Structure formats: structure tokens, C-alpha cells
């Protein structure tokens, strides 16, 4: 959006800077939380779930705000949807080949 709306005044633009600082602080807090939770030594499935949820929230904030995905054009979303689909394919397809009791 920022590249296409050059008429935005400097003062108006400065207001947008606030959200960068909010995300920055939130990312630091979530990092502290994810480290703190790891010291609780939860059982492994729960620990993995919690850590991945926090990581996804952090990644989402970086992508949405720092990478300006919130107000990006459709073509970028199209590229990303395809990428995410293939990412999950590459992530989960090998899981089907794992036979019970096999080792790599």
C-alpha cells in the first residue's frame, strides 16, 4: 500500500509508526513467554503445541505488520496461498511414509 499511496502526508504516516513499536514489544513479550513455558517442562505434545502456537502468532505479526501483508495486493496473497499449500505438502507427505517402528 505504502508504495502506491504517495499522497499520504508525513504526519499521517507517523501515526502508523506506533503499530511497529506495539508489534516489537509484543514479539519480545511472546519470546519471554515461550522461553518461560519451556521451563515448566510440560509433556511433549502440549509443549510442542504451545510453542508452535506462539511461534505462529509471532510470525503472523511480523508478516502482517512489518511485511505489510495486512494491506497488500491480491497477487501476493495468491503467491502465499500456493506457497503455504506446498509447504504443508512437503511437511506432511513424508509422514505418510513412516511405518510404525521404523527408524531413519
Amino acid at each position: 500500500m505504502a508504495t502506491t499511496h504517495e499522497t499520504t502526508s508525513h504526519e499521517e504516516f507517523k501515526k502508523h509508526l506506533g503499530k511497529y513499536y506495539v508489534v516489537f514489544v509484543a514479539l519480545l513479550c511472546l519470546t519471554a513467554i515461550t522461553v518461560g513455558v519451556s521451563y515448566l517442562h510440560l509433556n511433549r505434545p502440549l509443549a510442542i503445541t504451545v510453542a508452535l502456537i506462539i511461534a505462529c502468532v509471532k510470525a503472523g505479526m511480523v508478516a502482517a505488520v512489518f511485511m505489510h501483508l495486512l494491506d497488500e495486493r491480491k497477487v501476493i496473497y495468491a503467491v502465499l496461498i500456493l506457497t503455504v499449500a506446498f509447504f504443508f505438502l512437503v511437511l506432511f507427505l513424508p509422514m505418510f511414509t513412516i511405518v510404525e517402528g521404523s527408524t531413519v
Partner: protein
Amino acid sequence: MAEASPYAADALIPHTVEPHPVTGIPNGKLGIWLFLASEVMLFGALFSTYVVIRTTAPHWPPEGGLSSEILNVPLATVNTAVLITSSITMVLSWASLKMQNLPRFRLWLGSTIALAFVFLVIKYFEYTHKFELGHYPSHDNFYAVYFTLTGLHGVHVIGGIIVNTFLLTAGSRMWATEPERFTNRIENAGLYWHFVDLVWIFLFPSLYLL
């Protein structure tokens, strides 16, 4: 000189500033996003390999104990904060250009590069400590995964330092002639840098904490 060639106009890369009529964005931005898509697949393939190796291992890490006991969590936590900070300085360098403030841009981009070096120095200490213990990538699957993923990520940090240093020095001359195009370059370099941060956000918990 570009003006000397009758074909110069054809050789220019179109839509560096004004959006392409089909995509609605400048070509450079589409290019960097396509590149990042390929990067997702590169890291995705390695991450998938990690998941397969780990889920089929009788115990993880193979030598016993916990990942958090083998790797240095405090150092990695500091490094996470360093990368997150470098992400905001990167976005502020772009924002400074949007507000026509070149000195501020230099300050923020310089800070981003400095923080990237801090990340690498901390990583260097982590690596050398492992080497002193004789723990090389060949030690076991845990160290193979650890060194491959953090090593590839480290190479990306170095790549970011090279690009950002160019944009801070010789590359910044473009600001005088084509300020909007230069601002877009910083935005694109930023997209790459935030991606490097994003990869670390997943690597840190999955390698160090779980």
C-alpha cells in the same frame, strides 16, 4: 552510457516505481515475494526432514537429556531479541525514507546491520563452544539438524548484511536521482530481512526449547 544505445529504453526494467497494471504492485516487490516463496520451500524441505528424523528417533536428542540442556537457551533468547530488534530498525529505515529523512534512514539501516553482526558473533560463540566439546555435525542427528538449519539461516543473515551494506553505501546514491525507486528497494530488502527473522522465530523453539 545508457543514453548512447538506441535500445536503452528497451533494456530498462519496467515498473520499478509505478505498479504493474496486471499485478497492481511494482515488479521488484512481486520478484522478492516469489523469491521468498522459494525460500519457504528450501527451509520447508529441511524442516520436514527434521520432523521425520525426530519422530522416528527412539529418543530426542539421541544422546539423552533435553535440547534445552544441550544448547545454550539464554544465548539463543538474546539472539531472538536481537533479530526482532533488527526487524523494527529495518522497517524504521524504510519509514524514514517515506518521511524524506535520509540521515535517519542511515541510522536505522546501520543499526540493522550492526544487530545482524551481533547475532553472528553470538552464534559464533555457540558454535565454537560445541566444537570445543567435539560436537560437529557428524556427531549425531541432533547436531546434524542443528548445524544445517542454523547454518543455512546464518548464511541468510550474512546475505542480508551484504545487501543492506550495499544499500547503505554505494546503493544509496540512487536516493538523489530516483528516491521512490530507492525506497522500494529498501522495502524489498526489508521483506527479505523480516523473512530471515521469521525463520528464526520457528527455529528457536523447535531446536532449542522442545
